């Protein structure tokens, strides 16, 4: 079995409400529930490819997604992608655990170091629904059926008209939609509206909705998260995989901070769901600490390699499917995808022939309507320092205290270290230190004596 901890819990149990960029609109009173959304943004110059994957759990026929786009997209600019690409990107970039084993203190020269890396992989899915006739200053610029989706591209002159049109067409759109739509209309943006074509959907044989992808040129390097907040009733999560050529991507209108990482944590995190729960708890705590005003960087690496690898880097073929338009055509690329393997170090890029690098920045944001008043704007920096959210488990050596002279001080050191790890964990997650001590089977903290205790004896 692969040493991959399923990370789905993070994306499944967190968050509530709407789509990240655009809102979902249901036709009935179905309970719309969209948790962590995932998006891939590939960008070089003005050329942009966006793939959206949303975790929609309702009935397919009741679903639609409305996304503002910069121009009327032609059919060739739209594609129905493969969810696997999201899974691959997720597995490759997910927060990970690294394990080390202490050498036996009685056996110094044998400095064996074992390392295993476990990644967490996420899991969500996409969206859709249905429009109808026309009216009210709304123009249907184009309509296509692509894969299992019926797509219309709308332009509108008035938000009221657009709202009315959507309503008349059977979409149950949130009450304040018109107000939220106005700024996009005035910026001359178009609206991409997709719903599921059930007949086509049945043909595909997929039970889940596949991600929608679109390619366009725009000077705006942004994600319209505001529309999805129209009737949000709590913080929402978005994980964005930003693929660029030159360096790390960050938000230019909000703080971008790195997750606290690369520290030693108690070894019990390896068991069961402990690590997932830890990361979930820590993310929540850190987001709260930043007042839900920051975007977190969870990973940044040149995709040609990794060290250690939580999952293998994406092949050229997979990168192209993700929308990375500057990698070589896979047909011309004889290199087979690397054999599966975990916890290894992937050598530096085998991408021959002057291939352009692909950099992956994984951003994770938990936002609320109050703390993110503007859409997310991005910039590509020239920063190329690799970063990963990696946590280290150090297993103590199994040794008897009197096995050798070094053993006793070693074991005392281990106890100290474990206490530090426990405190670290408590600080990061805002958890209860005593509960953690309990799990660690650490001796309870010695009851702290008052300083004057024993003074007069």
């Amino acid at each position, binding site marked *: 079995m692969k040493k991959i901890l399923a990370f789905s819990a993070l994306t499944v149990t967190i968050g509530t409400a709407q789509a990240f960029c655009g809102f979902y609109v249901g036709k009935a009173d179905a309970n719309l529930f969209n948790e962590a959304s995932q998006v891939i943004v590939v960008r070089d110059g003005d050329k942009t490819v966006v793939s959206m994957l949303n975790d929609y759990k309702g009935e397919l026929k009741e679903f639609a997604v409305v996304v503002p786009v910069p121009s009327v997209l032609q059919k060739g600019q739209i594609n129905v992608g493969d969810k696997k690409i999201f899974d691959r990107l997720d597995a490759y970039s997910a927060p990970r655990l690294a394990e080390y084993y202490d050498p036996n203190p009685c056996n110094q020269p044998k400095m064996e170091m074992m390392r295993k890396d476990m990644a967490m992989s996420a899991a969500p899915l996409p969206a859709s629904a249905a429009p109808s006739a026309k009216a009210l200053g709304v123009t249907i610029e184009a309509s296509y059926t692509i894969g299992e989706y019926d797509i219309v591209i709308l332009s509108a002159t008035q938000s009221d008209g657009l709202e009315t049109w959507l309503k008349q067409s059977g979409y149950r759109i949130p009450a304040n939609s018109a107000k939220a739509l106005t700024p996009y209309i*005035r910026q001359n943006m178009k609206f991409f509206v997709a719903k599921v074509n059930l007949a086509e959907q049945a043909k595909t044989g997929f039970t889940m909705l596949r991600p929608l992808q679109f390619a366009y040129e725009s000077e705006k390097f942004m994600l319209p998260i505001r529309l999805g907040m129209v009737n949000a009733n709590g913080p929402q999560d978005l994980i964005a995989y930003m693929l660029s050529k030159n360096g790390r991507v960050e938000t*230019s209108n909000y703080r971008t901070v*790195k997750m606290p990482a690369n520290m030693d944590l108690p070894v019990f995190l390896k068991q069961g769901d402990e690590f997932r729960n830890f990361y979930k708890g820590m993310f929540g705590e850190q987001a709260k600490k930043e007042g839900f*005003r920051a975007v977190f960087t969870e990973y940044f690496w040149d995709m040609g390699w990794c060290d250690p690898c939580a999952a293998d880097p994406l092949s050229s073929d997979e990168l192209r499917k993700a929308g990375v338009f500057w990698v070589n055509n896979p047909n011309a690329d004889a290199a087979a995808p690397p054999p599966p393997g975990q916890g290894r170090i992937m050598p530096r890029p085998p991408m021959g022939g002057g291939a352009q690098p692909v950099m992956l920045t994984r951003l994770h944001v938990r936002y609320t309507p109050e703390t993110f008043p503007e859409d997310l*704007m991005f910039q590509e920096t020239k*920063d190329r320092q690799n970063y990963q959210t990696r946590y280290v488990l150090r297993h103590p050596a199994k040794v008897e205290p009197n096995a050798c002279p070094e053993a006793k001080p070693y074991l005392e050191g281990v106890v100290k270290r474990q206490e530090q790890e426990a405190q670290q964990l408590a600080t990061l997650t805002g958890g209860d230190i005593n509960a953690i001590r309990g799990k660690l089977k650490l001796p309870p903290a010695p009851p702290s004596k008052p300083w004057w205790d024993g003074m007069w004896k």
Partner: protein
Amino acid sequence: MGCGSSDLKLQDARLFQVGFQAILLTIGVLLRDFSLLPAQMALAIASAIATQAFWLKVFKLKNVGYLSPLITGFGLSLLLRADSLWLHPLVACLAISGKFLIRIRGKHLFNPANFGVGLALLTLPGAWVSPGQWGNDLGIAVWLIALGALVAQKTQRDDAAWLFLGTFLGLTVARLFLLGYTFERGWEILIHQALNGALLLFAFFMISDPMTLPDRPAARRLHVILVAVFAFCWQFLLYRPNGALWALLCLAPLVPLWDFLVPGKRHNWHGNKPLQTIVATQGKMPG
């Protein structure tokens, strides 16, 4: 303005600015994950001072202090981010050298920190500016405004900072109105932008630097308004970050033109004999 007292006041203002930047930076590094290494900051400041010493020696200048390179070193540390240790000192060196070498009629053309940041972004690998990195915490913003205003007022050039902010934010309000945001949402966005630390830092510590603005008050105001309009267009029409930095840099060549067309009384900022006067009397400086 009495010479002695005003000189003292100006010195104070300068010291105050250095002190303020040092405090801000330290708070930033400690609390805000500024991704700036203490070594980068130290190297930037050391390099700026060393470069200043070098050029003072080359041009045999006396009575010119080291506050200016100190401020440049701090300014660069606050704005510029790099993935290496060599970049900050190199940029500091270029910035200070630019101050000595790129002069028109004895007055340096570019604000040194502004020049350094622009040069780094355009030509050097591994350099970037994180405009959103300051966050917009009310506390920091209030500090910036309060202390910055104090500094600006002491130097009698507060008009530049406030004029820049007024124009830039005024245009922002107009944009929000035209885009049809609801009042509530528009207000939130305006506050979000007005509390941007990088914008405030630019306003109070870069554009308000009187050495690189036109001498005549009317020309100065016009120039500041142009910078604000340029910055706004860069950011909201071209959708590119760091509008204010690019605006100040790109429009700097206009300053000598204003000074030529409408000359005014040169600002004495050093609190001692201004560099320009020394240069003019000693005739050692090119340009």
